[in-house]
């Protein structure tokens, strides 16, 4: 991965440029692994977006190679239960001995090793929060099933994510706890050439690390770049400083250089930066490279990086824009081969799923899972009075002692608002939808529902608010709503159907709420024309209906319109005329819909 001159503008050369970029991307992932091995307790881990499975395997091997001793890999499936993850009661041993025996959780077993989390974007919020806390404290504490366990749990976390929708890769602030976030979209394992980093180099760097000098202006520059990139968390600059020190040590430098700091910024800040794509400069033909000291021949059309902060912010911007391009290419390919999904296989059985909230008397054959511990507790006080059990058993348990686990019903509702944001009254309707959303969320039972908002205008539909339960987030993202332009109703319906499908796959119960007059004038492909637009809208409405999710249609025209009623019927919706803006009525109707659905 040595640097070369910028490629001439012909096709062959541009392919080579891409290959070099891929190689550089892989080089950075490899560098991240080396840095993690160098400072596992400070840098904690990394999340990789869109890594091919072979690439993930390769990366794990590299990390293990760099780590001292015989570190071991531990995989954490996203479906892991609390007790397997954090430790709990060992059922077999408990039954065999007649006294409670603890079982070590995965996180404790991973101590001093590497924790691999595949498909991390699907990790449930609770599991992610528990993992985040163990990463923070370096200890795994469990208080459950009558056990009180505490053990050291310090490991390197490698999370691999590949979400369908853009947004945060990891739930519940887990991403903030891991130093690096890198995209490996489109990087092919076949193109990886020989490596520049070796375990010996890492071992040598480990010795040099404490003596690396850090110039003050670099600390200042990297903190300022974090601010300029809109990164609020204080963990990020701390990670970045540590990483820059590691990069200098790996390169054999006694004093951290500008390039070390800029590279660290790229590795740590790119996944966290809050910048708009328009603000990013065009991709540079050659991204900065690992352990390639002092080459400042980066040819950028952007302002001369005489300012250190400028240099760092720039490096991150280039990385973000390259990542988005690579991601977009990949996602486009995937949506074309999308598979149809039905509702089969996602019936939620509240007897066996969800989070456990306690135990009650019952028959395990009929009522769900046996709660062994509660059963033993119930039986225990009677042991003196009861006859000794036959067959050498230690405890006498009778049917009346049986306790079964109670679970919280988890099928959580997601209300998807689809709002017509076209024309002059756009702001009015959006304000109404916003009011209804806020009313819904601030209601007493708000915690069980999340809300999403899709607005359609101009040529297409935008997901303005991905599903969320947070009023704070709603307020933040709805404060600057766009409006105006044509009415791409079909695109709005299509987007709603797509989101409903995604949510159903996550075992949520989507509810779709339209605020529209049912009169589109933009076809699905973005071209104007009433006839095509109406046809497309009907097609999409039928597609939505096929999903069999509850739909509510508010006709917002001044007088109830036949078109609105027609499209509403096509999508199998409940039709409600709403000639006057009324957020309270919208939220009340939605609430009634939710209650109805919950009852059936």
């Amino acid at each position, binding site marked *: 991965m040595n640097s070369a001159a910028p490629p001439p503008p012909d096709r062959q050369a541009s392919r080579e440029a891409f290959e070099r970029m891929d190689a550089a991307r892989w080089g950075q992932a490899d560098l991240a692994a080396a840095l993690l091995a160098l400072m596992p307790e400070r840098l904690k881990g990394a999340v990789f977006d869109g890594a091919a499975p072979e690439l993930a395997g390769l990366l794990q091997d590299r990390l293990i190679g760099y780590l001292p001793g015989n570190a071991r890999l531990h995989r954490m499936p996203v479906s892991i239960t609390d007790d397997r993850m954090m430790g709990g009661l060992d059922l077999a041993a408990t039954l065999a001995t007649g006294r409670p025996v603890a079982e070590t959780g995965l996180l404790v077993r991973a101590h001093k090793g590497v924790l691999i989390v595949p498909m991390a974007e699907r990790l449930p919020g609770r599991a992610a929060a528990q993992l985040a*806390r163990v990463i923070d404290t370096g200890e795994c504490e469990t208080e459950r099933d009558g056990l009180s366990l505490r053990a050291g749990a310090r490991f390197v976390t490698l999370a691999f994510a590949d979400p369908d929708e853009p947004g945060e890769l990891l739930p519940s602030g887990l991403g903030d706890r891991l130093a690096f976030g890198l995209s490996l979209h489109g990087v092919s394992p076949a193109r990886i050439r020989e490596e520049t980093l070796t375990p010996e180099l890492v071992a040598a760097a480990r010795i040099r690390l404490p003596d690396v000098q850090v110039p003050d202006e670099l600390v200042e520059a990297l903190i300022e770049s974090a601010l300029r990139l809109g990164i609020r*968390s204080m963990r990020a600059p701390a990670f970045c400083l540590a990483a820059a020190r590691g990069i200098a040590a790996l390169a054999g430098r006694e004093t951290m250089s500008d390039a070390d700091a800029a590279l660290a910024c790229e590795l740590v800040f790119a996944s966290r930066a809050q910048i708009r794509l328009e603000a990013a400069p065009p991709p540079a033909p050659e991204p900065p490279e690992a352990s390639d000291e002092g080459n400042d021949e980066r040819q950028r059309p952007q302002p001369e990086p005489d300012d250190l902060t400028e240099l760092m912010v720039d490096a991150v911007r280039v990385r973000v824009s390259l990542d988005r391009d690579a991601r977009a290419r990949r996602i486009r390919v995937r949506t074309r081969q999308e598979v149809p999904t039905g509702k089969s296989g996602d019936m939620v059985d509240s007897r066996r799923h969800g989070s456990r909230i306690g135990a009650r008397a019952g028959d395990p054959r009929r009522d769900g899972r046996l709660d062994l511990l509660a059963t033993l507790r119930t039986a*225990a006080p009677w042991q003196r009075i009861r006859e000794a059990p036959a067959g050498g058993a230690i405890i006498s348990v009778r049917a009346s002692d049986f306790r079964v686990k109670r679970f919280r019903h988890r099928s959580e509702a997601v209300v998807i608002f689809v709002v017509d944001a076209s024309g002059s009254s756009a702001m009015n309707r959006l304000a109404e939808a916003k009011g209804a959303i806020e009313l819904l969320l601030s209601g007493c039972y708000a915690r069980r529902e999340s809300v999403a908002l899709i607005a359609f205008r101009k040529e297409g539909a935008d997901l303005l608010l991905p599903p969320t339960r947070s009023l704070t987030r709603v307020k933040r993202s709805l404060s600057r709503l766009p409006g105006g332009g044509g009415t791409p109703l079909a695109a709005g319906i299509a987007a709603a159907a797509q989101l409903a499908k995604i949510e159903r796959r996550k075992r949520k119960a989507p509810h779709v709420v339209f605020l529209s007059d049912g009169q589109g004038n933009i076809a699905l492909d973005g071209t104007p024309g009433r006839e095509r637009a109406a046809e497309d809208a009907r097609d999409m409405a039928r597609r939505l209906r096929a999903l069999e999710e509850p739909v509510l249609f508010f006709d917002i025209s001044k007088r109830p319109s036949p078109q609105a009623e027609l499209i509403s019927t096509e999508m199998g919706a409940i039709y409600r005329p709403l000639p006057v803006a009324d957020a309270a009525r919208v939220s009340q109707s939605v609430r009634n819909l939710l209650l109805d659905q919950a009852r059936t």
Partner: protein
Amino acid sequence: MAIFPFVAIVGQESLKDALLMSAVEPAIGGVLALGDRGTGKSTAIRALAALLPEIEVTRGCPYHCAPDAPAALCTICAQKAPRARERIGAPVVDLPLGATEDRVVGALDLERALANGEKRFEPGLLARAHRGFLYIDEVNLLDDHLVDLLLDVAASGENVVEREGLSVRHPARFVLVGSGNPEEGDLRPQLLDRFGLCVDVRTSHDLAERMEIVRRRDAFERDPAAFLKDWARKTTALRKKVVEARACIGDVTLPDAVLEKAVELCMTLGADGLRGELTLMRAARARAALSGEMLVSMETLKSVAPLALRHRLRKDPLDDSDAGVRVERAVSEVFVS
């Protein structure tokens, strides 16, 4: 792992104040810290454990009863007269997210029950937190029924257990501290106003302050022992301040004029019920005691108002402004006259 010292935390003054006030006056009713990720909420709360003065306890008492004043409910201390005493660090119990109810409230000691048929109560986390703090990180992710239960016990100061043929009551007076990120889901309003103080934790946008945060964090992680030593003197000084404030808070007086303003403020803001006024008074007293003042001044009252009231405001769909801003607006209104 070493714990980052409380006194070395840069910024986050309201959070630190709220924690210290609660350490001086537990009756304030707990602290809720809401804010962005990576703002050091957990760091501050975990650092508090190392800062607080040790307490004297009866050896072997699972509830950490004070030897000279055992809790009336404590059956252990009521049994035999002479018991050894010992000093322990102030309890700060970190509630794990996946904690089950039996470990929180306590349950039948299964091992003893099975081995010798003895019906014995095994105290849970509530017992361990007595006379200290109970910390719930990501309080918005905890099951509602557990949060309810914790708030009930925190308010009443005793834990009543009726399960598995056991009937136990034991003292459980602790300061409940919760933290969370509102972007991951809001707390139910009913739970919100049961916390005494509420802190809005924000990241600083001041470059110098951010640099100091990163520098100290870096120094600490590179050599924790040396870092702790550097800050030992300041830690001792602050600890002394807490001890002194605890000793004198009983003598701090609240002039009628100040009390009047406190009531007026709550009325202006529509903070329903007495809880707002009581918290406001207690917080003002604790703040005065911490600064060594024996008289609560108007300034002190003003300074604690946002902490005590920001989460008790009536919901106003027309007013989008931040709760803290609304409190401050009301403060300037009330104090003008």
